[in-house]
């Protein structure tokens, strides 16, 4: 952005051009993050819940149960880091609900911001917001029994954050569907159910075979499997990757449809 000097620049000959990158910029990103961090309910949901669940689901008591390159504590820890990142990315996408309810989307439409740059801002914010719960859960785990190889810490952390991006279009979709501030109160329980059937709360091995087969088709399953694989040390199958890609495509398509419909006055 160049600054106009109103004492020197002539009003009519003032240079006018379009912003680079469709308006995407770091100040916008920074203010977007500040906004999300100011939402206290959001922070409790995103950071406190998965940390509390770590203790509730026995993360602190499973130290001596060895699993692959780590232990059962690290299994619980990674699963809940994925859960926290899922909430963070969904909430970031769903923040569009508040923006629409407030007419902010309309305000942005009369600025040079391009829709693609706006989506890129949402994805970048989601990535950054995903870091908070993953770090919180990993620090909690590290101090309370979770053990695994160094490489597993690093890789599973990045997979949890990156994989959770699947839920950005999910949040956007819900945000366009329900333009109100209470959208996360509905999505919170939905995410808990998805986490449960996707094997983030209870290991898949504890479930019966019918349930296990259904679980493989739910959206949280693939990310959990891939995020845990460096710790488990057995790699991941193609079905998990397909699960992530297909759900990403479904959510993105739904969000894009509603985004295009969203041209009215809200």
């Amino acid at each position, binding site marked *: *952005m*160049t*600054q*106009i000097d*109103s004492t020197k*620049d002539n*009003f*009519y*000959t*003032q*240079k*006018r*051009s*379009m*912003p*680079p990158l469709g*308006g995407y*910029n770091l*100040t*916008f990103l920074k*203010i977007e993050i*500040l*906004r999300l961090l*100011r*939402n206290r309910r959001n922070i409790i949901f995103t950071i406190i819940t998965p940390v509390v669940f770590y203790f509730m689901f026995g993360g602190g008591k499973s130290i001596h149960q060895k699993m692959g390159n780590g232990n059962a504590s690290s299994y619980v820890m990674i699963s809940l880091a994925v859960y926290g990142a899922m909430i963070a990315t969904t909430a970031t996408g769903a923040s569009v609900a*508040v*923006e629409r309810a*407030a*007419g*902010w989307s*309309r*305000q*942005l*439409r*009369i*600025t*040079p*911001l*391009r829709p693609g740059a706006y989506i890129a801002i949402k994805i970048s914010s989601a990535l950054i917001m995903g870091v908070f719960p993953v770090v919180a859960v990993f620090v909690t785990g590290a101090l309370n029994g979770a053990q695994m190889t160094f490489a597993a810490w690093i890789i599973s952390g990045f997979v949890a954050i990156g994989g959770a991006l699947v839920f950005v279009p999910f949040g956007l979709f819900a945000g366009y569907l329900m333009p109100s501030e209470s959208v996360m109160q509905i999505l919170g329980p939905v995410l808990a159910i998805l986490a449960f059937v996707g094997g983030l709360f209870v290991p898949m091995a504890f479930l019966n075979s019918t349930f296990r087969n259904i679980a493989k088709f739910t959206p949280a399953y693939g990310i959990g499997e891939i995020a845990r694989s460096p710790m488990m040390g057995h790699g991941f199958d193609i079905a998990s990757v397909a699960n992530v890609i297909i759900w990403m495509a479904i959510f993105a398509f739904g969000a894009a449809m509603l985004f295009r419909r969203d*041209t009215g*006055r809200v």
Partner: protein
Amino acid sequence: MSNSVAGSSALAIDLVGLKKSFGTLCAVDNMNLQIKPGEVVAFLGPNGAGKTTTIDMILGLLPPDEGNVSIFGYSPSQAVARGYLTAVMQSGGLLKELSVVETVRLISTLFAQSLSVEEVLHRAGIDTIANQRVGKCSGGQQQRLRFALALLPRPDLMILDEPTTGMDVEARRDFWKAIHQDSQEGRTIMFATHYLEEADAYADRIVLINKGRVIADASASEIKAMSSGRVVSADVVNPKIADIEKLPGVTSVEYRGNHIVINSTDSDTTARYLLNIANAKNLEITSHNLEDAFIALTTKDS
């Protein structure tokens, strides 16, 4: 001079054959409107006349069914992307969890060229509440914040959609003072309002629309005269009634006891005749107010 803005076709707003229907309802019906750079235009009409639909099409928020919108020779979205055109909306459009200065800083980053954040806060008269959360600002302060956002690229054209709705008298006056001070630069302004005194006080030109069409387009005083003219009265001895009746715009003449009362849509010519030719004294011109004209014109049409 303003032709340098965007080449040869430098009308600030050029609406040609604009049409927009919602189902069977025709909101804008073949609207033609040309606004030159530097004009301050009030856009008047009863509720449902098509003001907001027209504004949405000018801003590129709504595609027209037929016709064309050109802003300094650009399409609306191109004009918005380059900062030629900004708007102040009636309500909404702000995030209450951000502060005033954060909101301005955020929007300023979206323009390739922008005035400084400090300057627009000052011009809009909200530099003293820069760190206040938007949610804690009064309606009038929020409206000045919207105005500050619209000032950022120093636009050539600013559209205001009923900007003072819900403000008290003092807030309205302060708001218009800020707009007025700023428009000295030569900015084109188009504002929709339903406060007729605002149109009367601040606009060079009034465009009155009803049922999606322009039904009157003139200065405030011309619009007032258009409805039923003005009343010119004076003391005069032995006037030539037949000559007066032939003056342009005269619709009725009444003469009683050396006092004449003339209804005329061209009160200037009538008055000039009375003073110069008929040696009239104590001449008075009373006009119908804009509200009378507004009601007369919009009901006549329906």
